[in-house]
């Protein structure tokens, strides 16, 4: 066997309260495309951040060409020839392609840039990648795929030996993916190694030579791609039973009346925002007291469906029915008036007022409940409302006057849920309800969702964690690339089946 180019041995990394990676090994051979696979939270990102110098391992060793190396910071990693291309590109949109490729290493004399040289050198790197664009074009005028090529060009111009690509295909069209894989093969032929992270197993089968699978922060398998099949990979990724964390299930509410029905939600490609996710005729319904899970990969359109129903993003066409009544929702205010609530995916950016007190955060949407006859906020009723939800949700805080930024993630999430409970919604959409919160709080949030369903609220739950989807939902719908690709009852659902539906792209489904 050839000597590995990169050898990571027994890498361990703790974060407060979490063992992110636990004695993980990774070997990458020279001139290969190596798939790094695993569910969300399996430890891929941590491993990559260690490799790019952004995190330092607690223990373990890294060897490059048989020589032990340390990676103190991203700059050092780059000097060793390890370059990472993140999902969120590291490009400066206002600058040109050439400036981005040479950022920090601009050719020139003294403080003067040599534009001619920079443009020529850039052209020499980008043309083999199939970009025939003036190097002096601004990056913001490029498509996502083109921006990605600029990132790759930058990596190449740094004489890198290993290029790490973190979900490079998630924002690309099928055609662009084919092109990217071609380029990856070319780079491989030139002797570069690529670490390829993706959720799309068909791409793994098409492009990778070998894969390493992580699960729960540990190695779950390593194989030559030619010896395995997609189900093998899924088995390695999943490899565990859904434990009884999700106790408290109630009877399937198949007889309950429909609480919300959406029909043919559609959002076209937007010229103003060409990278926005489109939706193709999404239709489904959810009954009172039911928990409907929406499963899909990041970027599949799950959040967009939620935001469309809630009136947060404009829709092109589609109908929303509350009960049997067609309603017109143009803004979140309309949605709230119809009894729909949304716990958004990003607590801090989209839900919390970090500078305000817990009390103010809890009652902001339901102030009408605590106004006195003159229209002033009645401090006593407001405090009572706060107390009531603090008790119901077990929000841990010294008082309602504490700023919400001082609470833990789990308690913050409970505050956001309390805000909606105070409005007594008919339908509650929760987008990644347990992202970034600890296990105990997670269980509490789950039991709250069950309680709400038991009270007859229709709950729509979006989650990237399949065990959560499987454990919580009465019924699951799957989304891939803005299309509804399947519907599964809880009894029939398995991770393998969902994974297959979540990655069923249009071209593959035909």
């Amino acid at each position, binding site marked *: 066997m050839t000597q590995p180019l990169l050898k990571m041995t027994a890498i361990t990394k703790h974060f407060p309260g979490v063992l992110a990676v636990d004695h993980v090994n990774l070997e990458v051979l020279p001139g290969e495309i190596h798939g790094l696979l695993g569910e969300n939270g399996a430890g891929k990102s941590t491993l990559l951040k260690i490799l790019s110098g952004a995190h330092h391992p607690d223990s373990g060793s890294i060897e490059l060409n048989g020589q032990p190396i340390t990676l103190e910071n991203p700059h050092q990693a780059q000097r060793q020839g390890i370059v990472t291309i993140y999902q969120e590109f590291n490009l400066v949109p206002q600058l040109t392609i050439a400036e981005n490729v040479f950022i920090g290493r601009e050719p020139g004399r003294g403080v003067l840039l040599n534009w001619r040289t920079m443009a020529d050198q850039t052209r020499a790197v980008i043309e083999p990648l199939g970009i025939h664009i003036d190097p002096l074009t601004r990056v913001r005028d490029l498509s996502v795929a083109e921006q990605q090529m600029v990132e790759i060009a930058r990596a190449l111009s740094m004489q890198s030996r290993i290029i790490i690509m973190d979900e490079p295909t998630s924002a690309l069209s099928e055609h662009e993916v084919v092109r990217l894989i071609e380029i990856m093969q070319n780079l491989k032929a030139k002797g570069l190694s690529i670490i390829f992270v993706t959720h799309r197993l068909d791409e793994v089968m098409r492009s990778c030579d070998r894969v390493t699978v992580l699960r729960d922060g540990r190695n779950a398998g390593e194989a030559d791609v030619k010896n395995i099949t997609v189900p093998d990979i899924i088995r390695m990724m999943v490899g565990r039973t859904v434990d009884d964390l999700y106790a408290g299930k109630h009877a399937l509410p198949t007889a309950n009346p429909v609480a919300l029905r959406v029909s043919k939600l559609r959002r076209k490609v937007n010229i103003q925002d060409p990278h926005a996710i489109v939706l193709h005729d999404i239709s489904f319904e959810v009954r009172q007291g039911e928990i409907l899970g929406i499963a899909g990969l990041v970027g599949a359109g799950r959040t967009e469906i939620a935001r469309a129903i809630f009136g947060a993003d404009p829709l092109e066409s589609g109908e929303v029915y509350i009960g049997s009544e067609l309603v017109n929702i143009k803004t979140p205010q309309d949605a709230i008036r119809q009894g729909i609530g949304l716990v958004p995916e990003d607590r801090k950016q989209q839900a919390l*007022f*970090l500078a*305000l007190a817990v009390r103010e955060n809890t009652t902001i949407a339901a102030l009408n409940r605590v106004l006195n006859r003159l*229209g002033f906020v009645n401090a006593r009723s407001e405090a009572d409302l706060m107390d009531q939800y603090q008790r119901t949700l077990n929000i841990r805080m010294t008082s309602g006057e504490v700023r919400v930024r001082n609470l833990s993630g789990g308690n913050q999430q409970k505050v956001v849920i309390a805000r909606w409970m105070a409005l007594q919604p008919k339908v509650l959409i929760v987008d990644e309800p347990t992202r970034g919160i600890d296990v105990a709080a997670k269980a509490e949030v789950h039991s709250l969702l069950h309680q709400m369903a038991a009270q007859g609220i229709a709950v729509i739950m979006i989650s990237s964690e399949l065990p959560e989807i499987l454990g919580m939902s009465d019924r699951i719908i799957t989304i891939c690339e803005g299309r509804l690709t399947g519907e599964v009852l809880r009894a029939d659902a398995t991770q393998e089946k969902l994974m297959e539906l979540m990655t069923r792209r249009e071209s593959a489904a035909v």
Partner: protein
Amino acid sequence: MDQATTDPKLMDSSSQRLDIAKLLGQFAPLVFLVVLIIIFAVATEGRFLNPLNLFNVLRQVSVTGMIAIGMTFVILTGGIDLSVGSLLALAGMAAAIAFKGTNQNTLSLEASDAVGLGVAGAVIIACLVGAFGGFLQGMVITRMGIPAFIVTLGGLTIWRGLTLILSNGGPISGFTADYRYLGQGLIPLPFLTEITQSRVPIGIPIPVILFLIFAVLAHVALRYTKYGRHVYAVGGNPEAARLSGLNVKNITLSVYIIVGFFAGLGGLVSSARFNSSEAVAGIGSELDVIAAVVIGGTSLFGGEGNVLGTVIGALLIGVLVNGLVMLNVSSYLQQIIIGLIIILAVAFDRFVKSRRRS
């Protein structure tokens, strides 16, 4: 059981500590103001504390203070209004023309000359012009999505130009006593006049009364109404506010109307006080107004602050100018000192707040 409530001792001590720090944090500008007053009182051998002088300071800060109340709403939403000085001049001019029924600068003081709308008319016109100016700017900001800084920077020159056109460039002066009363009048306090053996009557100036009434109203609105809560929410996190069902556009629009209203009222009061509507009134006053709000602890990023702080901020600037004048500090040096004090006051506020957080 809830961890926090099972241990009352822990809860008490932590909340107490919080309260002291919080009080100091809340009143950092006040502490600063008191220190300044003491310094001036000592340096002027008590002359600074003469009631006549104190009421004079109050009268001087009233117009800036009123507009700063409105500006507090704007800055709480994360916005800014640079046009208030020009809007003040426009509203003052409009009020003068409405009152006199002409834009000719007749210097007569006779009430019989007033063929216009009378004092009530002048008040209404001034406030309406201000509020409407704010409304137009607010519409451009919220409906076209142009940053407030840009829109109101444009407004700053547009309203000034409009004022100059209306007045042919000159002042409109000479009003009746009832008009002037709004700027020059006072509610006499005879006992103070007696005690201090003052030759001129001492009393609470009308602009000060207006300033304080509106300060109280604004405080109540921000603190005890749904609307006020929404203003903080929009400034704290507009996206979260929208997703919580708040009408972010209309709330944002409303604060520009409010600050416009106060600029209009301020224009009327200055016109009455100086017995003249000047086309050049209020030039640069937007900076005093913004300084008062910021010294008062309101965050330029929105979502944090209150009217109480703004009142203190306005007083602080007034006290500083007055005290330096009394001490015969050269007007050149005054500007440097005022600038330094503004920075120092905000630095002190930051310092206290950061201590409170840690």
